[in-house]
């Protein structure tokens, strides 16, 4: 184990990472938010979705440092007397759950499809790429919203699926592009020449050499999926009202903003922004590390 850690410490990747204070800060922010989400039931002073624990007498309390603020409501309460801090912890659980699921499912699905499309080419490749073009020209937000809005059922799984349905495309395109160049490399030709099966060639030689750009896509996509879930929930077609979501908190708090109750929106908004911004910073750094050529976008 120690050996392993020492090995990691010597890699270029790690050294570059430590030298980049921004990327490190971003990772720390994400870790804190992730731990907060993971241990929400332990940390949160209140379970905001347990109706028995809510007291309307405590509704719309300001944050604790302001006049009228009460312990234990650190960041104040919403109209139903929910502790904002607790709701944010629970809401970011949803964000992480959706983000991770979308990235994993889209990554495997899109990565797999793109890998085979790129390696084998032919009609399958054409169909996949045309589908990808089509899906890309419509917006993910629009597609997910229409699906969820038209079927009128909402659950966290449906939200994930509605995002994945258009999200796998970018993984497919990215890896396909890589595969197209990798498959002309000599080691791939060698594997084919000594009679390796197509599957063996694809998984042992092509995949390991074309997978790294997917990391960059995944980091950006993580943030986009979280933003998309928040947007869908904000519009009322995402997570059901009985479950926590940062987007829904903002949507519900919006009406009280005009009355000066800024904390209903400010803290969930800040959390959402910190999360997505940190993810984008990390993806930016990853991009520079993995492929200095595409430093720009």
């Amino acid at each position, binding site marked *: 184990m120690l050996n392993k850690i020492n090995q990691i410490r010597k890699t270029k990747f790690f050294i570059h990472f430590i030298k980049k204070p921004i990327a490190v800060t971003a990772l720390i922010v994400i870790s804190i938010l992730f731990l907060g989400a993971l241990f929400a039931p332990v940390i949160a002073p209140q379970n905001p979705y347990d109706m028995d624990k809510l007291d309307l007498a405590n509704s719309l309390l300001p944050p604790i440092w302001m006049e009228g603020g009460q312990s234990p409501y650190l960041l104040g309460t919403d109209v139903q007397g929910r502790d904002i801090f607790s709701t944010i912890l629970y809401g970011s659980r949803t964000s992480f759950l959706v983000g991770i699921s979308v990235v994993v499912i889209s990554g495997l699905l899109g990565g797999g499809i793109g890998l085979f499309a790129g390696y084998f080419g032919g009609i399958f490749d054409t169909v996949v790429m045309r589908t990808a073009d089509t899906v890309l020209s419509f917006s993910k937000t629009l597609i997910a919203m*229409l699906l969820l*809005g038209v079927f009128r059922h909402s659950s966290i799984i449906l939200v994930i699926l509605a995002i994945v349905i258009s999200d796998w495309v970018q993984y497919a395109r990215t890896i396909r592009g890589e595969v197209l160049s990798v498959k002309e490399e000599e080691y791939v030709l060698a594997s084919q020449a000594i009679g390796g099966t197509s599957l063996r060639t694809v998984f042992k030689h092509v995949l390991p050499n074309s997978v790294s750009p997917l990391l960059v896509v995944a980091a950006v996509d993580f943030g986009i999926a979280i*933003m998309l879930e928040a947007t869908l929930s*904000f519009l009322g077609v995402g997570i059901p009202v009985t479950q926590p979501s940062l987007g829904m908190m903002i949507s519900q708090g919006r009406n009280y*903003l005009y009355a000066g109750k800024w904390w209903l929106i400010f803290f969930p908004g800040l959390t959402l922004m910190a999360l997505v911004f940190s993810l984008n910073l990390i993806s*930016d750094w990853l991009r520079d590390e993995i492929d200095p050529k595409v*430093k*720009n*976008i």
Partner: protein
Amino acid sequence: MGAFIGRRILQGIIVLLLVSFIAFIIFQYLGDPVMTLAGRYATQAQRAEVREALGLNKAFYVQYFNFLKNAFQGNFGMSYVTKVPVLNLILERLPASLELAIVAEAFAVILGISLGVFVSANPKNFASKFLMTGSLLGISLPTFLVGILLIYIFSIILGIMPTSGRGETVTILNFWRSGLLTFDGWRHIILPAFTLGMFQMALLFRITRGAMLEVLGAEYIRTAWAKGLKGKSVLFKHALRNALIPVITMVGLQFGQLIGFSIVTESIFQWPGAGNLLLNSMYESDFPVVATYVIIVALIVVMLNVLVDISYAFLNPKIRY
């Protein structure tokens, strides 16, 4: 060239057919059109009549064919809720949406590209570094949060901007209600257009910068410098022209994204556009409106894509068709 354009148009038509098929399914099979149109208390005979009138008794492909035929003639059926022809409903709302989208896009393109050029020309400048981080923040902020933030700052705290609506409009050419011809209209469009355009601007800024940096390293740029050309001339005449190709493609491709985000923006600012109509129709299960919206958006997006492909081929002679 002709074959290339032909193939692109053909692909566009295939996409439209696919989308129309999805729209047809939404239209015909989601919700219960018979119940909605005949009313809850209709007799068996009345229901049969409505079924017959809607053609629900015919074979599936006949129904789809009829749907297409009607769509071609601009007949998309009646809204379940308002009982008005759907197409009129959407066309009435479309100018508001298009004006918002165009102003947002114009703002994004002008600011995004000029900032991108500035940063690529002065990469070490403090302002450039600030802009780079700022643009990352720009693509990290969800549209709805930006909108709410702007309303809070400019409308509630400062009180200098209206919170919602389109303001005073003028009707031109008998059907287009425009808000761009009045001062009040412009006052109303600024916040929503900024909200909608910010993400695009940040994106275009980053792409322009990237494309410029790549082009600025090319041989012909070094030649241009070596010839002793002025900085402005090299930057705009030689570099920007070539850097613009990916940017223009992105502008065209991102228009679909813009439509998606415009629904969010319209909802926040209560903008009387087609996106807001779509949202309300979804809440009310008014499926004909949803189906028609899908088709119209697809039509706009596909046409734009074909145009982008064609202009791309014209701009870049290296592209083989």
